[in-house]
C-alpha cells in the first residue's frame, strides 16, 4: 500500500523523530511511504479558537494536498480527528463536502491504521521497558480508539504495560487552551502527570504528540523520572 504521511506541524518542528519513526514502522511492514511537502497545519488551532473561516481555508488546502492519496496516516489522534470528524462539519455547506468525506474515510490515526486497517498487532519491535499509556482525548472520544494502541504495545517484546489511575483523564493540553488558561491546564497536568509518575514506569507512551508535549513539559519541570515517548517511537525499535 502507498501511505501518505500526515505530519502535524508541531511534530514537524519539535518532534521530527515521531514522523521518522512512523515512516520506519510502515516501511518495515512493506509499505511505500510518501510525504507531500506542501502540507502545513490542519487548521485545528483556528478551528478550536472559533475562527472557522481560517480553519476552512486550511481544510480546503489539505483536501488538495492529499488528493489522490491511497491512504493518509498521521501519528496524532488529535490532528487525525480534525480531518476525520471536523473537516466534514466545517465544510458541510460547501461544494467541498464530498471531498472532505472522501478524505475522512481514507485518513487514519497510526495505531488505528495498523490494527484496524492492516490487521497487524505485532510489528516486530522490541523494547524492554516499563511503560504506561496515556489516552489522548481525541483518539479516545472522537475516534474511539482505546484497545488499538494497547494491542500494539502488548505485542512488543520485553515491554511491560502498566495502567495508571486517572487513565481516561485529560492531560490539560487542549491546544491554545493550555496557554490561554495556564492555571487550569497546569492543575490538570498535575493530576494526570502525578498519576503517570506514580506507576513507576520508565516511559509514558501516547499516540498523541500534543499530549506528550504537555505531560513531558510538566514532568521535566517537576523532575519526575518518567519520559514521554510516542507509540511510533516504541514500535520503531527493532527486535
Amino acid at each position: 500500500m502507498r501511505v501518505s504521511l500526515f505530519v502535524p506541524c508541531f511534530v514537524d518542528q519539535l518532534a521530527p523523530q515521531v514522523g521518522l519513526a512512523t515512516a520506519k514502522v510502515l516501511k518495515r511492514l512493506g509499505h511505500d511511504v510518501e510525504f507531500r511537502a506542501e502540507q502545513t497545519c490542519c487548521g485545528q488551532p483556528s478551528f478550536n479558537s472559533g475562527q472557522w473561516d481560517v480553519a476552512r481555508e486550511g481544510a480546503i488546502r489539505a483536501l488538495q494536498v492529499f488528493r489522490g492519496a491511497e491512504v493518509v496516516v498521521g501519528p496524532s489522534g488529535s490532528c487525525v480527528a480534525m480531518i476525520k470528524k471536523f473537516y466534514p462539519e466545517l465544510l458541510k455547506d460547501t461544494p467541498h463536502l464530498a471531498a472532505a468525506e472522501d478524505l475522512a474515510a481514507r485518513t487514519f490515526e497510526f495505531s488505528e491504521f495498523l490494527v484496524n486497517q492492516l490487521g497487524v498487532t505485532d510489528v516486530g519491535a522490541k523494547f524492554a521497558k516499563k511503560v504506561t499509556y496515556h489516552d489522548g482525548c481525541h483518539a479516545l472520544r472522537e475516534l474511539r480508539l482505546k484497545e488499538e494502541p494497547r494491542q500494539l504495545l502488548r505485542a512488543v517484546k520485553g515491554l511491560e504495560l502498566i495502567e495508571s489511575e486517572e487513565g481516561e483523564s485529560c492531560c490539560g493540553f487542549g491546544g491554545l487552551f493550555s496557554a490561554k488558561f495556564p492555571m487550569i491546564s497546569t492543575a490538570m497536568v498535575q493530576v494526570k502527570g502525578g498519576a503517570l509518575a506514580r506507576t513507576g514506569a520508565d516511559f509514558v507512551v501516547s499516540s498523541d504528540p500534543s499530549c506528550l508535549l504537555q505531560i513531558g513539559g510538566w514532568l521535566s519541570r517537576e523532575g519526575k523520572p518518567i519520559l514521554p515517548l510516542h507509540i511510533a517511537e516504541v514500535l520503531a525499535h527493532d527486535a
Partner: protein
Amino acid sequence: MSDAKQIFIKDATLNAADGDQRAFIRKALGGYYVNRDLQKARYRDWERARDAASLAKWTAVNDLANQLEKFTANFERNGGIVHWARDSAEARAIILKIAADVNAKAIVKSKCMTSEEIHLNDALEKAGYGVVESDLGEFIQQLRGEPPYHFVFPCMHVKREAISELFTKHLGTAPTDSPEELTMIARRHLRQLYVDADIGITGANFLVAETGQISITENEGNARLTAALPRIHIALSGIEKVVNRLDDLAVLLPMLATAGAGQPMTCYNTLYAGPRKPGECDGPEQFHLVLLDNARTRLLADPEQRDALHCIRCGACLNVCPIFKNIGGLAYGTTYQGPIGSVITPHLRGLKQWNHLSSASSLCGACTDACPVRIDLHHHLLHNRRNAMKQSPSLFDRVFHAGFGFVMKRPALFALGGKVFLATLPLLKKLPLPYMSAWLKTRDLPVAPPKSFRDQWKDSAHG
C-alpha cells in the same frame, strides 16, 4: 475583557492553586464513580438506555409548544393554576403576587435551581418574607450566604467541621463531627418550619404532558413536606422540563439517579397532580405552577444546540469534568456550573459576557460521554466559540489567526517560519511573549531539534 471573565480568571486561578481543596473535591467524588459504575452495570445496555432517554427528551423538546399545551390543559384539569413567565422578573413578580394574595408570611423551599436562576430568595426576602431552604445542602449554603457549588450537591465543598461551626453559630447547637447528628440538627430545626410556612416552593424534575403531573425527585423527603404541609404550593419550572408520556419516566428517573448520583433510584420519586381534593387528608389548598422561558426559546430556535434543552440536571457532566474538579463550582459565577452551564449560560445571559466559559475547556469530551440524554456538550463549546468570534472577535484573535491562516496557505513560508522558529526558540523562551511565557511558567518545552521533519525527510533518501 468582560467583568464576568475577569472574575472567572481571578477565582479559577486561586482555586486551581488550592491543592487541598482540589483533593477534597476529588475524594468527595471518589465514591460516586464506584457507585455509578456499579449501577450502570445493572442496566442491560447503558448505551441503549441513553438512546431511549435522549429520544424521550428529543420528542418532547422538538414538539414543545404542543406538549406544553397538553400538559397545562391536563394540569389545570387536575385543579392547578398555570402562570407563564417570559423572564426572571416576570417569574418573581408572579410569585410575589401569589404570596401577597394569600397573606403569606413564612415560606419554605425545597431544592429548585430555577429559583436560583431567577434570584427568587433575594426578591422574597426584600419583600419581607421569611424564606428557608429545606434541602440540607441548600440550607447549609443559605446559612453560608453562598450560592450552590454544584447544582446537585450544593455544599460538596464544605467540610464537616465547617458545617458544625456554622450550626453552632446560627442555631446554637453543640459542636459535633457526626454526619448523622448534623443531619438531625437540621431536621429538628426545619420540622416546625414546614408546619408554620404558608407557602411551599418546589422545583420540578419533569412535567408529564399526558397526565398533567409534576415529577419531583429527592433524597431527603423534604420536598414532600414542602409540597404537602403549607396551604399553598408553588412549583417553578423551566418550560423544557416537559416529557410526553408517563412511561418516559421509567427510563428517565433511574438514569437521572444513576448518572447524577450513582444511585439505582433516588429515594423519593413523587408525582404531584393538583391541590387537595375533597376527602383527601393532605395537600395544599392551591397548587400554582410558574413556567419559565428566560431565553430557553432562544435555545429552542437554534437547531444546532437545541439538544441542550434535553438536560435533566443530573450533574453527571460536572462530576467527570476536569475543569470543574480543578476550579470548583463557584468560580463559574453561574447558576448552572460545569459543562452544561458553559454551554447554556451564553444563551441565557449573553454570549459576549459568558463565552469565556466555552473557551475555558480542553474539549476532552468526558462530559458528552457521561450525559445520559446525549447532549453534544463539548462540541457545543466549539459552536459557542465560533458564534462568539462571528459576533465580536477580539483584535488580537483576528490578527493572530489571520496571520496563521496566511502562513498556513503558503508551504514555503510555513517551512521558513518553522526554520526561524527552531533557530530562535532559545531566545523566544526568554521573551515575554503571549502564550509562550504562560506555557513556560509551569512547563518546559523540548530542546529544539537541529532540523525539522520536512528537512530531514528531504535530506534522506526519501526526498
